[in-house]
């Protein structure tokens, strides 16, 4: 039943708009509202502020600004919010992306260039939207799958990559209590999850059914396994000193003195190993352009590439944050924010706008110091790109297996000596418990 295109008439146009509005209203009243109410009435609702959150309470809270805050407070402590937004995915991605942008500008300045400049809003901002432009483009790009590729793995590997990176992020506390999953085996869990990455790289490179990705995947596997051991050993000396595997406890236990003072060699080994784990210059062998095109990313296109890049950004954030927690005292730092942010007896609208009561000065201070240290470490991880060439695979493996492991052991003995001398550790003379 073909439709005949009508001549344009303003009346018809108005009529069509009215029709659309009418249909929307009908659908709303007949379908959506009942559904909403069914959900609200029959799904057990959590108590907020001592009252059970009924739809009517919800509506009244939305209307009254002063009563909105408890809902928001409740919301930001729910697990989905934590996973998706604040200590989790979006937060980490934004931090990583912002730092990557700063790094691009910084590298450009180092190389006497200006870097991204025009991709801003109305010509201002020195190209701060460069990564947004890259992201938009990557999303809208065609995804090519090579013939003969193992399609399920080819699709699943990038998603697994991001998911694994997000899982690492979920274990990282940013402030006391602000962690998605506060397990007692946090450190072990981090290493366990990091162990998935070489597997994903190898799977993806095998699934690509192409030669350069295969070489890249093998390189990634060799490199990550070679550096896994010094990585874990260097973190082990921290565990010895802190007496705990819980990341929050580790951060808390270095309250007066950061562990980097006692374990500089471990910190160095950890830093180098995390560079290798992240495939950053000078250890970007799995993606070495001049040798093996783009390594195991050679066959990625469109959003597959975007997802893997996103995952690696998350990884950058996670490993820098881990470095901060293990060696730089986590969120500890001088209190520079007042305990009470904003006037306590402001009018309700101001209270809502400043989100008063949701946080206190201590938390904000902790997050602030955590961010400062983390961003500093990310910059430190990205900077070798400007001054260092790529290393060769046999030198890299030699470094990993022969040198870094020995160095990690050296500092572990130092840590043990400190414990037995009663200087540090539980009940040590220098630790406050």
């Amino acid at each position: 039943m073909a439709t005949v295109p009508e001549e344009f008439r303003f009346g018809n146009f108005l009529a069509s708009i009215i029709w659309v509005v009418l249909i929307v209203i009908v659908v709303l009243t007949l379908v959506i509202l009942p559904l909403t109410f069914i959900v609200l009435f029959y799904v057990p609702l959590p108590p907020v502020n001592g009252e059970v959150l009924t739809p009517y309470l919800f509506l009244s809270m939305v209307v009254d600004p002063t009563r909105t805050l408890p809902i928001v407070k409740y919301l930001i402590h729910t697990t989905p919010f934590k996973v998706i937004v604040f200590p989790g995915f979006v937060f980490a991605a934004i931090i990583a992306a912002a730092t990557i942008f700063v790094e691009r500008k910084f590298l450009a300045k180092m190389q006497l260039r200006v870097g991204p400049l025009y991709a801003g809003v109305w010509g201002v901002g020195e190209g701060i939207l460069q990564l947004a432009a890259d992201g938009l483009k990557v999303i809208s790009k065609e995804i090519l799958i090579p013939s003969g590729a193992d399609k399920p793995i080819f699709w699943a590997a990038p998603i697994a990559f991001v998911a694994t990176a997000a899982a690492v992020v979920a274990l990282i506390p940013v402030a006391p209590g602000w962690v998605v999953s506060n397990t007692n085996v946090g450190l072990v869990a981090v290493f366990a999850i990091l162990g998935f990455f070489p597997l994903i790289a190898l799977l993806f490179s095998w699934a690509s059914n192409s030669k350069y990705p295969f070489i890249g995947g093998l390189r990634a596997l060799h490199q990550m396994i070679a550096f896994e051991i010094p990585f874990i050993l260097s973190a082990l000396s921290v565990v010895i000193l802190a007496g705990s595997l819980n990341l929050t406890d580790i951060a808390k236990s270095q309250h007066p003195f950061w562990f980097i003072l006692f374990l500089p060699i471990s910190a160095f080994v950890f830093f180098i190993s995390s560079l290798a784990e992240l495939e950053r210059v000078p250890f970007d062998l799995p993606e070495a352009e001049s040798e093996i095109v783009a390594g195991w990313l050679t066959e990625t296109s469109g959003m597959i590439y975007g997802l893997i890049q996103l995952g690696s950004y998350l990884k950058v954030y996670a490993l820098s944050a881990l470095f901060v927690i293990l060696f730089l005292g986590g969120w500890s730092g001088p209190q520079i924010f007042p305990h009470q942010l904003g006037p306590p007896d402001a009018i309700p609208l101001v209270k809502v706008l400043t989100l008063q009561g949701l946080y206190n000065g201590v938390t904000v201070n902790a997050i602030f110091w955590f961010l400062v240290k983390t961003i500093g470490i990310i910059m430190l991880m990205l900077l070798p790109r400007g001054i260092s060439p790529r290393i060769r695979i046999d030198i890299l493996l030699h470094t990993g297996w022969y040198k870094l492991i020995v160095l990690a052991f050296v500092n572990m003995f130092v840590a043990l000596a400190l414990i037995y001398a009663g200087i540090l550790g539980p009940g040590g003379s220098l630790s406050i418990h």
Partner: protein
Amino acid sequence: MADLEDRISESQKMGMQIVKESDDDRLMTLSVGPQHPGSGHFRFIVKLDGDYIVHCDPDPGYVHRGEEKMTEYRNFIQNIPHLERPVIHDSTNITYSYSLAVEELTGIEVPRRGQFIRAIASELNRQVYTLYWLAIYGIFLGHSTMFMWPTGDRELFIDLLEALTGARVTHAFNIPGGVRNDVPNGFKDRCLRQITYYEKRLKEYEDIFYNNPLVRQRTEGVGILTKEDAISLGVTGSVLRASGVPYDIRKAEPYDVYNEIDFKVQYMKTADSFARAYVPFLDMRESCHILRQLLDKMPEAGEVRAKLQANPRGPPGEAYRRVESGRGALGYYIISDGTPKPYRVKISVGSFRNMLALPHLLVGAKMGDMPVIYWALNYWPVEADR
């Protein structure tokens, strides 16, 4: 010899062992190029056993444009613009030996000031070429700053050449009988200022690149080309000098004013990739020294080119003239039959000669050494293909 063998890295020795033991069903064939970030306008087919290259077969010709055939259809002057295209960033040197050969055939004499300006332009262009080469070597090693810095400093030399010749890279400056135009006012001071700045920059290059321990680790002991091999393979330029043969056309067969210039032939005896990468750098320094002398000795006034007839022609005969370009000896063999057009032009370029060393050096090396060895050969594929 014995000390050179000591320098061969462990991985290279293992590679040679693996090359001996490999058989066909273990090999993976890789086509490196022409769309490969580490190949340029070139392709070579390598066979890998594990990470070791056991076989390498160069496949040039992606930029073969038939220069030698085209010369037979143009007269001696018309040939200049297309003959400089193969090495667009060393265009003064590639037309230099052509001009010398045509001058020999037609009997044109170059005025003394013209000879000096030629030599100055040639040395400036050598800097431009070597800086570009160094930039690419940097990015091949994964050192992005080493790509940007020489590219930036190269622009300053390009500015000088632009002031001198009027074009950015394609100068068409050397013609039979001299150069196209005189130097602009204040050129000498500008040039000297640039050289002083540049010598400071060279120290920084050395700090960030050549003295970088990672660069040392990657290049030293990799791709040893012994003196005997270098001579029998007939390599030239920096590759030859890195193997311990102090051979430079400017010294061996001084053309124009080079016999009045006091300079050293820079060479090294270690014969590895580092030496091949370091000798061009030493050449750049020496070239600064040569430039100062040239600017100092240049006559203040005088003609810069001889009077040319519309279609220069000479008696039938042949000439083979060489200059030292950025990639080594660059020779033109021209046969003239008495007409204004050459009967046959053969361009003997350094890149084509150095290509022979590529399979020789790559066999037994690791895949990761491939860009290190390849680009240290001072190879420019466009020139090799002609």
